Each structure stands twice: as C-alpha cells, then as structure tokens.
C-alpha cells in the first residue's frame, strides 16, 4: 500500500487531531533522542535514556497510525537484527580494548574536553547502547501489545477491530 494512503487511512489508528500532532512531534522526539545519545558524554543522559526516547517515538507512531505503518518502518525482525548488531558493536568496542592489553580500555585519543568528538570510545559505546535499547524496547512493545492483542482476538473470536 502507498505511504500517503497508509497515513490518511481513517480506519486505522486514532483521530486526525492525534495524527497531525504526532506528525509535528515525531521529528522533535527523534532529534531530542539522538541529541541525548550523541551528547551523552558531555551532558546528562546517555545511551539508555536516549534509546528509550527514540523507542517512545516509534511507540507513539504505532499508537497513532496503526501497526501497519510502524511495522513497515521497523518490523519485529528488523528490530531483532538492530538489537543484535547493537550488542555486537558494544562487545566489539570492549574487545578492541585488548589493543592496549586490557578489556574495555579507552584506546582512542581523548581529545579536547567539551568537544563532541572526544573521550575516546565512550561516544561509540553510547551509540551502540542507544541502537540496542531503541530496538529492544520497541520489540518489547510489539511483543506485549500487538502479539497479545492478536492472541486475544483469536480467543474471543473478534476480528473486526484491526488495530
């Protein structure tokens, strides 16, 4: 189905008021989440908090527009792959510390304080954790709400409310 058709489909998701507000808020949420992840070594925040904010953006998309659009942007298989690659990236950063002889050694140059590119491997580890948390929290939401709702509908034999 076409993308605009999915967005303007009145039978899926919530009212047009909610959809319009979510359309405006979505970009701000994603920028704020990315800011929290990328500036984790300079200001309060970090990979976990920023990842949960990004996942909340996907969840608000699911709630407002229905599961077809949100799962088209990130399917549960894609979320699993992103989750695994985030974990692998984090472990790789830890193992690369053996370049200097110790697990989790901060082997990159430290740079100037308060610069965006500074503090060695810490921003890279933040990005890895942010990817992992975004994917896994969205996967938990999909597993708990959409899978559970489908099972519930099968149990009560009601298939007219498709998200």
């Amino acid at each position, binding site marked *: 189905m076409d993308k605009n058709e999915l967005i303007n489909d009145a039978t899926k998701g919530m009212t047009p008021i909610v959809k319009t507000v979510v359309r405006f808020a979505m970009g701000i949420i994603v920028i704020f989440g990315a800011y929290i992840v990328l500036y984790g*070594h300079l200001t309060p925040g970090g990979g976990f908090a920023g990842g949960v904010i990004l*996942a909340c953006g996907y969840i608000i998309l699911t709630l407002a527009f229905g599961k077809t659009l949100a799962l088209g942007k990130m399917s549960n298989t894609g979320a699993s792959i992103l989750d695994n690659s985030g974990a692998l990236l984090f472990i790789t950063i830890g193992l690369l510390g053996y370049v200097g002889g110790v697990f*989790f050694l901060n082997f990159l140059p430290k740079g100037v304080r308060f610069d965006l590119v500074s503090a060695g491997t810490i921003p890279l580890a933040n990005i890895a954790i942010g990817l992992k*948390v975004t994917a*896994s929290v969205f996967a*938990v*939401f999909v597993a708990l709400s959409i*899978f559970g709702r489908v099972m519930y509908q099968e149990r009560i034999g009601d298939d007219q409310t498709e998200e």
Partner: protein
Amino acid sequence: MEIFLLLLLAFMIIGSLVAIETRNLLSSVISVGVVGFSLSIAFLMLGAPDIAITQVVVEILILVILIRATITTDNTAIEGGRDTFPFVSSLIFFGLFLIFAWFAIQELPRFGEPSMRISRRYLETGAARTGATNIVTSVLLDFRGYDTIGEATVLFTSIVGAFVILRRRGRKQKSEEDREKFGIIEEEEIKKTFEGF
C-alpha cells in the same frame, strides 16, 4: 529541602498502597505511575539529573505498555477477598525484615555523607583520564564497562525470552515423531474424540 523530600517519600508510599489496594486495574497502573514520577523528582532534588531523565522516560514507557496490556485483558476488576495465610506470613516476614534492616542501617554512613573511598578517585581523576565531562557516563562506560555489558546481556536475554514466549506459533512444524514422543494432541483430534459425548 529534607522536609520536602520526606513529604515526597510519604506521597510515594501512599501511591504504592493505593496501587495495591484499589480494585480497578487501570487506576492501579496510574498509581504506579504516580510513584515513578515522584521518584524522578526525588532524584532531581538529590542532584542526579542523569537518573531523573532515565526514570521519567522509562516511567512513561511502562505506563503506555501497562495501559495497553491492561485494556486488552478483560479482568479490569479483581474479585474476591484476601486469604489469611499469605497475609499473616507476609506480615511476619515484614517484621523480620524491619529487625534486620534496623541493624543494617546502623552500619550505613549518614545521609549525605558518603565514605567516598573509591568514588573520590573517580571524581578527582575521571575527567582527566577519560576525557568525558559527564562523570556518570565515564563511570558507566569506562571504569565500569564490564557492569554495563552485564546490563546489556540482561536486556538482550529478556527480549529473546519475550519473543519466544509471546510468538503466535512455533517456527518448527510438529512432526509425527514429536506427537508420539511428547504426547502432543491436535485440537481437531480432541474435538473428534469428544464428539460422541
């Protein structure tokens, strides 16, 4: 300052009591949210903006997921009273916990005066040794990176478990051999067996 913190703690205790005692599942979930948001304000007052941000965000997420999950199930009101044995045994264990906690609290450093044996070194040399100006991140991802790997492993395992348990159907088809070995009976066979009754 400290009085305000104590008021906040009392508010949180009231919220958790309401969450346990109320009969409606939706208002119980909202009371849990009250406890979480008060906790984030308490973290902010204690000077921990990192944890306050995480607490607010996770609380919003948990509220959304819990409301979504409670609305789909049909038991919005819990019927029936409370059994005597679990109530009495939990009272006894709570009393035991209070006695041991009293002895343990005597040994703790006073509120606001940490002993700072290891953390003083982190605070003094953290910025110079890691280059990160956020001291919490430098402890989490540099000094204690090994702990963070453990945390990531816990998250990963829980996601895998959720996907395996909540998936609609298993990936592997049930073969004839499995049915004989584990005694798996299909729904149609059960219906066929009970048709005559």
